[in-house]
């Protein structure tokens, strides 16, 4: 175990967690954007029809 294990563990956790979450959020976030824009588009069209 390297010296100052607490800060070593935090550093490793940061690199591993951040790398993993970046890939995960990049994939899931792109899907979120797609579905958000689809919902907004549907609302926009519905409002245009009502007018």
């Amino acid at each position, binding site marked *: 175990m*390297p*010296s*100052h294990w*607490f*800060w*070593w563990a*935090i*550093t490793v*956790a*940061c*690199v591993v*967690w*951040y*790398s993993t*979450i*970046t890939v*995960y*959020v*990049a994939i*899931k*976030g*792109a*899907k*979120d*954007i797609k*579905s*958000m*824009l689809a*919902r*907004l*588009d549907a*609302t*926009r069209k519905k*409002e245009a029809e009502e007018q």
Partner: protein
Amino acid sequence: MTNFNWLLDGSIVGVYLLVTMIAGLMVRKYVGKVETFLVAGREMDVYLGIASLAATEFGIVTCMYTAQNGYEKGFAGATPGILMALAMAAVGLTGFVIKPLRDSGVMTIPELLEKKFGQRIRWAAGVVIVLGGLLNMGVFLRTGGQFLVLVAGLDVRYLEIMMTVLLVGVAVYTILGGMLSVLVTDFLQFVVMSIGLILVTILILMNVGWEKLVTTVETSYGAGGFNPFVNPTMGWEYVLFNLMLNTAAVLTWQTTIARVLAAKDTRTGRRVYTGTAFFFVCRFMIPGIWGIAALATLGPVANTLEAMPTYLSTAVPAGLMGILIAAMLAADMSTDSSYMLTWCSVIYNDILAPFRKRPWSERKGLFWNRTIIALIGIFLLVYGLWYPLKGDLWTYLGVTGTIYLASISVLLIACCYWRKANSWGAGASIVVSALIPVTYLVMEQLPSTAALAKSIGPYYSGIATYFLSAAAMIVGSLLKPQSHVEGRTA
């Protein structure tokens, strides 16, 4: 001399800027209502929220100060990040404050405060939030420019022009697309920023090595470089002040809260908080390691704020340098766009509220929101870029932040959970939380009181602000019985 290569690194930066601008402008067609403009029609989901919150809360100014913390305090300098992560996880898991806030369906914090404390407090809270926020943000642009000039080795004469062009670009997509553009560009910026931060950190850990980082901190700061409680520049008061500051920021910082308010429901808002919590450890640790690496490589320097970018300018090779600069531009652009939109939302929704006796049309509302963002952009240019700030930057940031955070966090907690809280208590809390930090700052500047201010220190002054602000709320509310006007609860 830096490793920046205009052809290779310049191309990477150029492609990033082009893609961001296109994405930001493409979504403007969906904006037809003020609600869509300010809170994205409340359609934001968890992962987009995590990307947006992380990108917004990491700007170049953050990177500079957290790296400076690493350089000056060693690993212990990451303490505020750990405290903020704990606060954010606790708030996300329990829904403390953010649940009633999102359930109420408001667009800003002062709008909720009106339900409990009346119109005047809503207006006063709006003014405090905007003043604190804008003055805080006023220094972002110049600090960001300093980083880019040092890392890329640009001519300092072009700093103003370069940052003006960047701000105009950000303002254009924010004005046209509002929160939708902010969310979409934040997403791209999160990905680019994260790639740059991770790659540079791995490079530093490989080149400098863990043992050298630890030895440098041990030699320079001893046990205080690892333990904030025994560090002579930190101590328990530093830890307590940062716990209060970061908890208040998690609860009330308008750019953070904007993600809860834009979430599609309360559960999504809470999940965004728990999902982003650990990012705040990375937010301090990653640039902190860069700062420690600068200390290990450069040794003592005159300006500790500039140590990290000076070190990176020669430590990062061409190619990766382009990714680093694109990452830092991404960090800065996402912060600028979110901050401009957020303060605009408070100005429009709360400060201008008394002037809207009758509801404005969506068209008129959008026009005014866009005008306000343009005016905020002009303010940032004049105040933050063309007018150089004098004095200590950290004190400046601390004072402007505490003026807002202490009172608004007390008001918000009381609004959500204390039945007897009223406008007298709220008014007293706002006055007290503004008075103490400003008095401390004035005492620091006056020769006759400078020694006293130094003996008190910024941390005791900050802690006193939070406690006395809460005391003012309790005393003020109990002294004056609740009036008929303030009968509604949140």
